[in-house]
Structures are given as C-alpha cells and as structure tokens.
C-alpha cells in the first residue's frame, strides 16, 4: 500500500477550516452591517483599501480568501462523494481547478491594489 498524496489538499482543507470557523462568521456579520450602511470608520472604503494596499494586509486577505476556497473545494468534493457521486477524480479536478483559479486571481488582484 502506497502512502496517499491526499495530505496536500487535506492540509489546505484543515487550515481553511480553522480560518473559516473563526473569521467567516465575523466577516458575514461585518458585511451585513456594511450593507445596512452601518460602517464604523475602521471599515470605511478608504481604510479597507489602505489595509489591502499594505503588504501585511495583502498577505492576510490572500490567506483568508484562498484557504476558504480550498476548504470549500475539498469539503464539497467529500460531500458529493457521500451523496453517491463516485466520479471522484473528475469532481476533484474541477473543484481544485476552481480553487486554483480563485487563488491566482486573488493573487493578481491583490497585487494591483496600491
């Protein structure tokens, strides 16, 4: 029996799970507040923009977006498998490509923010 290569995606999945468990609920709440036009100065467009222009801010935003994506992709793959979709290789390829596209585009759009 050969050792599996699943740890690559599982590592991202687990890290993403931790990140989403802690940060996503807060983000959802803040987005809701913003949508209700309740944005304390800390969350105005200018200050978020400044955050994204900063290198540390970029790294944090990149981490949150991409880890959530890889988490969702892997979770969805397993869920589909549990629901009886047995074309695991096809499912995995499609979902991970989506996550990879998201990762690359997050990388470049963050780079373009000055």
């Amino acid at each position: 029996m050969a050792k599996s290569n699943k740890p690559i995606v599982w590592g991202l999945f687990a890290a993403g799970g931790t990140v989403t468990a802690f940060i996503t609920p807060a983000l959802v709440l803040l987005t809701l507040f913003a949508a209700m036009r309740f944005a304390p100065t800390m969350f105005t467009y200018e200050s978020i923009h400044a955050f994204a222009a900063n290198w540390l801010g970029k790294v944090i935003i990149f981490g949150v977006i991409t880890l959530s994506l890889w988490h969702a992709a892997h979770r969805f793959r397993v869920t589909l498998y549990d629901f009886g979709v047995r074309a695991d290789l096809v499912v995995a390829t499609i979902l991970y490509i989506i996550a990879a596209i998201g990762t690359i585009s997050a990388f470049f759009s963050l780079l373009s923010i000055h």
Partner: protein
Amino acid sequence: MSEERQIQLEVLRYNPETDLEPRYQTYTVPCVNEWVVLDALNYVKENLDPTLSFRWSCHMAVCGSCGYMINGEPKLGCKAFIHEYGDHIRVEPLAHFPIERDLVTVVEDFITKFASVKPYLIPKEEKPISAGEYKQTPAQLMKFKQYTLCINCMLCYAACPQYGLVPEFLGPAAISMAHRYNQDSRDGGRDQRQEVIASHEGVWECSFVGACSEVCPKHVDPAGALQQVKVASTIDWYQEHLMPWSKK
C-alpha cells in the same frame, strides 16, 4: 420493582445454506425491566427456539461479541436495556458485514484489517529481561489510554457509512488501534504502521462523519483518533516531500 412486561422481539433469521433470503421472526418474550436485549435473546434460545444463533460471552460489555443492530442502531446486546425501548424491539446482525447465520456475522474482513496495522508493541530497542521493564510516566500513558479501551465490537464499522460504501476502507477501530500504539512512548513501530494507515484505503478514506464515536460503547472516540492521524500524516507528508533530509 421488577415489573414484568411482554415485548415483541423481532429477530432477523437467515441460514445461507438453506434460505434464499433473510426473513424476520417475532417472538413474544416476558421481560423484566432490568433485562438487556441479550437476556431476551437468551430467553428465546432457552425457552422458545433453540435454533436461534447469536454471539455473546461476557454479558458485561467487555468481550465485544454481542454487537447487533437494535432498532436499526449498532448496539451491544448486553448494554441495551429493555426499559429504554418500547414493546417492539427489532434485532438484526451488524450492518456492513455478511451474515453467517441469523445474528452471527462474518468478521474476517475486520480481523485481517486489524492485524494489518500491527496492533502490538514494537519496542524501540529490544532489551533483555534482566534490564527491567519499559517504564512510562502517567502523562505518557494518558496520551493513549482512551484508545486502549477498544473491545473490537465492530459497532463503529456497522455505523460508518464510508465502510459501507468502500469495503476496502481500513475503518475506525483498526486505525484507532494503530494510533494507540503510535502514541505509546515505548513503541518504535510507527513507520511500519504509517505505511498501512496513511494509505488511500487507510485514514484518507474517512470523511469525518463521526458516527463511529457516537456508537462506541467504550467512549474510545475513534473519529478523534482518525483526525489526529490525519494531522500527523499530513505533517509526515510535508516532511518527506519538502524536507527529505529531516527523516531517515
């Protein structure tokens, strides 16, 4: 307050040598509320129908041989009290295992898998008996004590939807037992076990449904063990592939 009450015990009957398919047979059993389902089965065997076959031995949740599906849930017959159920109780053999006879299942698959993870101590260094015992602190014992409580009753295999779907899956109890020895400070066999449990049919077939931990009569928490194995195997993988110099 030993109240007596009548229950309808519906038992799956099947003899692969003579029957085309399994059927259900219902017995009326006078029960005392303190009885467990195994007592009701024994009543049937002794008084109503000596042909009924089922496994049991200790009657105290230690030997692990009396696992059945009771009203659709994997349970130990000797730990499922009559007073927790209504007047109609259905008993079937453990799910996901072939039937040998009535409630007796064919368990070779589990035994082979269990043996494949080398569930025994492989000492780091062999010592002569004169060198004394392999010592361990209470803190070192606590790291794995809960996993030693497994009685191999296979309820977790009957509960695991993944094992039902993918029969090659090594399964909860075998991987938990590998984890138990991997966590043992006296043990040096982790590399050998990882070859088996870090494989695709090993821990990576688990999708963390968690049913194994819910049905475990000894609170081993196999699902927790498997997640720890996943974390450890992931760290291994990165070490082996990104820092090949760090191992061996």
